[in-house]
C-alpha cells in the first residue's frame, strides 16, 4: 500500500471525520440513535482502516496492543466500577440516581454517560485487538516463510 497515494490521502482526510462521528455517536447517544457499542465499533473501524492503508507496524505504534489490552479491561472496570460506586453511595448496584442524590435524573444521566464510555472503550479496543490478532498472524506466517526461504 506504500504507493497508493490517492488511497493514503483520502484515508488521511477521512480518518478525523470518522473519529469525530464516532465521538458524536458516543456522547450523543442520549438524544439520538447510537451509544457506546456503535461508537466503539465506528472508532475501531477507523483504526482498522488506518491499519489496512498504512500497515500493521505504524498502526501498532499509534495503538500499541499492550495499551489496547489495558483499555479493553478498563472499559469493563469503568462499567463495573460505576455500579460499585453506587453500592458505596448506599444504593443498588448500577442505580445511577445515587450519584447526584439531590437530583436523581442528573445522576442517571452521568451514570449512563460513564457506562456508555466504558462500553465504547471496551468495544473499540477489542475490535482493533481482534483485527491485529488476525492480521498479525498472517504477517508472522509470511515472515516465517521468508525466514525459511533465506535460511
Amino acid at each position, binding site marked *: 500500500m506504500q504507493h497508493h497515494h490517492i488511497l493514503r490521502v483520502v484515508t488521511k482526510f477521512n480518518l478525523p471525520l470518522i473519529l469525530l462521528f464516532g465521538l458524536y455517536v458516543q456522547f450523543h447517544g442520549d*438524544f439520538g440513535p447510537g451509544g457506546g457499542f456503535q461508537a466503539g465499533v465506528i472508532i475501531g473501524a477507523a483504526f482498522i482502516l488506518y491499519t489496512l492503508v498504512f500497515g500493521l507496524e505504524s498502526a501498532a505504534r499509534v495503538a500499541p496492543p499492550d495499551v489496547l489490552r489495558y483499555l479493553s479491561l478498563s472499559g469493563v472496570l469503568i462499567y463495573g466500577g460505576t455500579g460499585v460506586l453506587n453500592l458505596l453511595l448506599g444504593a443498588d448496584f448500577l442505580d445511577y440516581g445515587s450519584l447526584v442524590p439531590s437530583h436523581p435524573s442528573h445522576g442517571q444521566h452521568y451514570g449512563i454517560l460513564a457506562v456508555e464510555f466504558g462500553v465504547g472503550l471496551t468495544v473499540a479496543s477489542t475490535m482493533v*485487538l481482534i*483485527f491485529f490478532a488476525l492480521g498479525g498472524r498472517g504477517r508472522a506466517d509470511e515472515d516465517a516463510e521468508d525466514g525459511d526461504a533465506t535460511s
Partner: protein
Amino acid sequence: MVAVAIIRLHDLFSVVMLFGIYSLVSAALLVALDAPDVAFTEAVVGAGISTVLMLATLALTERHERRPAHRPWLPLGVVIVTGAFLVYGTLDIPPFGAPDNPIHQHVVPRYLQDSGTEIGIPNVVTSVLASYRGYDTLGETTVIFTAGMSVLVLLGSARRLRRKRKGD
C-alpha cells in the same frame, strides 16, 4: 434471495461480500420498522466490522470452499423440520404491532411514560439499555471483552508482534 446466493456460491470472497449486503438490507428493514438504534448496530457491526474480520480471516485461509464430502440431505431434512416447527410456533403469537400485545402491556408503558422524568434523557432506547437493563449491558460488555481475550489467547499476536519488534 441473497441468502440463497450465499448458500449456492463456493467463492468465499463473494460470500463475504454478500453477507455485507445481507446485513445492509437487514439494516434498511430495521429502519423501515422505526428501530434506528438496532439498524445502526446492524449496519456498523454486520456490514462493517464482521465483513472486514471475515476478509482478514480469508486472507489467512483459502479463497474457495472445498467440496463437501457428504450428502446434504440429512441436514436439510433437520433444518426443514425445525423451520416447520418454528413457523408453527409463530401461528400462535399475537398479530404484529397490535397495541394489546403482551409485550406492550408489561414494562413498556412505564419505560415510555416515566423514563423522561426518572432518567431524564430523551432516547428511551438508551435509558432502557444503560439504566433499566444495566445488568444485561454489563454482561454484554464482559462478553465482548472475553471474546477479545479469547482471540488473543488463541492467536497470540501481541506477543509475536513485540518479539518481532525486539528482533528489529
